[in-house]
């Protein structure tokens, strides 16, 4: 079990945790930075100041209560649906690959891809927003075309680590995939 720190494509720190459960079963967890208190405070202050300004103009107390409600609901939705705490990749040789992301509120979404559907794991380049980044992805087999890939499943989409982290995960995965 090793825990190393890398950076993501915006320069923020992420950490990679590799666990070797067995010779052919490994788990990689990439954890993003936690929610910063500063950002939360800034956001809350902005919303409330704005609400107070509106209240000062309109003299309607419903504005203030709605501002509080909006802040609470917004933060709940953010930590439940948007903020990803860590993403993990579990590679079980000859069985398949499991990709899961867990959000800040504890919710987890998991997908399992069977080994007979997987063509390969590769590092690919893509244009993302106004940058060009490297990302790790799983290529799925196309039943009608033995040489082609029917679709691409990108991994670590929320944490987006940089190339050095991806290479480490890639080499490890290839060791297992080539054995089975």
């Amino acid at each position, binding site marked *: 079990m090793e825990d190393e720190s890398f950076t993501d494509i915006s320069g923020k720190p992420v950490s990679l945790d590799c666990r*070797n459960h067995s010779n052919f079963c490994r788990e990689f967890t990439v954890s993003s930075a936690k929610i910063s208190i500063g950002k939360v405070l800034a956001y809350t202050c902005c919303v409330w100041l704005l609400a107070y300004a509106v209240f000062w103009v309109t003299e309607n107390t419903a504005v203030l209560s709605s501002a509080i409600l909006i802040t609470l609901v917004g933060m709940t939705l953010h930590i439940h649906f948007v903020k990803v705490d860590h993403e993990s990749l579990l590679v079980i040789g000859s069985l398949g690959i499991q990709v899961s992301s867990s959000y800040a509120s504890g919710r987890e979404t998991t997908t*399992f891809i069977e080994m007979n559907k997987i063509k390969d794991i590769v590092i690919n380049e893509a244009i993302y927003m106004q940058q060009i980044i490297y990302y790790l992805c799983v290529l799925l087999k196309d039943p009608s075309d033995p040489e082609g890939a029917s679709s691409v499943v990108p991994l670590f989409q929320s944490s987006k680590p940089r190339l050095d982290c991806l290479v480490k995960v890639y080499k490890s995965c290839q060791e297992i995939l080539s054995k089975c």
Partner: protein
Amino acid sequence: MVLRIFFPQCCNQADSGLLVGHWMPGHDSAVVLAVIHYPFIPGQVKQYLQQMRSQSGVELSVLGSWSIPKEGQEHMESFLRDLSTIFPQDCWLQLSRTIGKMGFNCHVIYQDLNGSTTSCKAAKKNGKIKGCDRESGEDNEEELGDEEKMILIHYEQRKVMQSQLHPIEVPDTDPPSELREVFQTVARSRPLFFLDRYDDGPLKSTHWQSQGREASIIVELLKQASVPLCLLISWLLSKWTRICNFSLFNLYPLRFLSSKLSTCDQWSYRTEHMRTLSSVKPAAGHTPFMRKANILVSLLVDVALGVLLMSWLYRDNRISIIANALLPAADHVAKELEELLQWLMGAPAGLKMNRALDQVLGRFFLYHIHLWISYIHLMSPFIETILWYGGLSACLGITFALSLLSDMVALLTFHIYCFYVYGARLYCLKIYGLSSLWRLFRGKKWNVLRQRVDSCSYDLDQLFIGTLLFTILLFLLPTTALYYLVFTLLRLVVVMFQGVLHLSVDIINSFPLFAVGLRVCQPYQLAEGVKFRVLCEEPGTALHLLMEINPLKCSAVVQRYRVPTYSCYPKDSWAALVKKLFVGELIYPWRHKTTKSD
């Protein structure tokens, strides 16, 4: 080559005995279904397995032995190992567990064609695989080095048996999926799970139902009662269909009317549903069962809401209040329309209209409104009765009430529809004329054969007449366009309202409440896939994983199990709709899909 064994969680604490299950062909894996305990007679075990094979259709066999060493059972290990000679297998598993340790010890004995045996211990020490030791002296071509690996996957048998893996139908070109086969094997082995511990038979086994079979009295009673009920309903339905097919009703006007009214659509739709529900044969397969269940639940909810609506409507004399409010409302609408027309006949918004055309069109439409108002006044004494009887239809379901409301709105606003059609036709003619004459202006014409615009030389008199007509049409355009615009807007308002009603009817009809309820209460029944968790392992044992069922997302459930309806959805995209409006084509934005039998 990694060996994968699917082991049921209920057998974790079972007494020592034989492992019964199924080797999956071509996958290097096996599913353990039950454990048959010691003492047993091998002949009876073989007979029992033969019987189970024919009943379930699954290739059952003895996979190996299972032992939890207890007090006074020291010779069990060697006894179980010798059993491998009685039940000849290519591969004999020996799983054992010591109380206090979490991991299992796994031992695999391979029997090749030569009859010699080689055993490999899948033990791990410090991450390295121990080498195999050969028991027989014969040379074997295969090199079984340190590559022998095993994964033990624990699964919860009851949930896997009841679960349905989605997508349900897989195209044949896809490679065979191991997990799908595991699920299917467990589901088909139901006959195996009837033998429990408390039977008097010679064999005792452990599986998820070994504590006794579960059943429910209410379910049994309902099952008994449903058959005569279904027969009754299907008899009633056949009578009704016979009446409907009466030749009198096949006359053209009635048929045309009934195809336009949404109430008739809804009625035929519900009849179809009742026919599905009332068939005596039980549903074969998962999809027909879910369809039936969804239909039943939606029908019940529909009727419940309808009865609720009725109880609200018939209280406090509400019907007469509504009836009394309806006539003044219709009058008010007519008066507003008249005022609108008067305004258009004057100088609307400061625009100057062509006086003659204006007067003609305005008077034409005013006459229509006058006719309509007289008609409404004629009907006024009957409105309350109509409403009263119409409200009764809500007992059939709220969807009927809503369809009836939509039809009544359509009937009451029939004049707006007529105005729209007149205005649109006039405008459309004008636009086509203008575009054709515009081409003439530029010396081109439309080539119908080649579907393109060609150049063409016209005679002088053709050009002269064409230009004259063009000017006339152009200057009359604002008047027509204004009338068209006004009536199109009115028609769109009515269409929107009807659309809302139809959409809500559609939602009530097609929403799969049963499936959503199943997803909420028993999520393992609708499975999208599986997820694995590594159980904490101890050094010296194989890899242990826990397989849990990953349920389908709610949105996927709704999409998958939607009852197909004559769904009302917009026929054209926004761009096409705007283009049609601009050119003056008649728009029927909500399309009714004809009920297809699926």
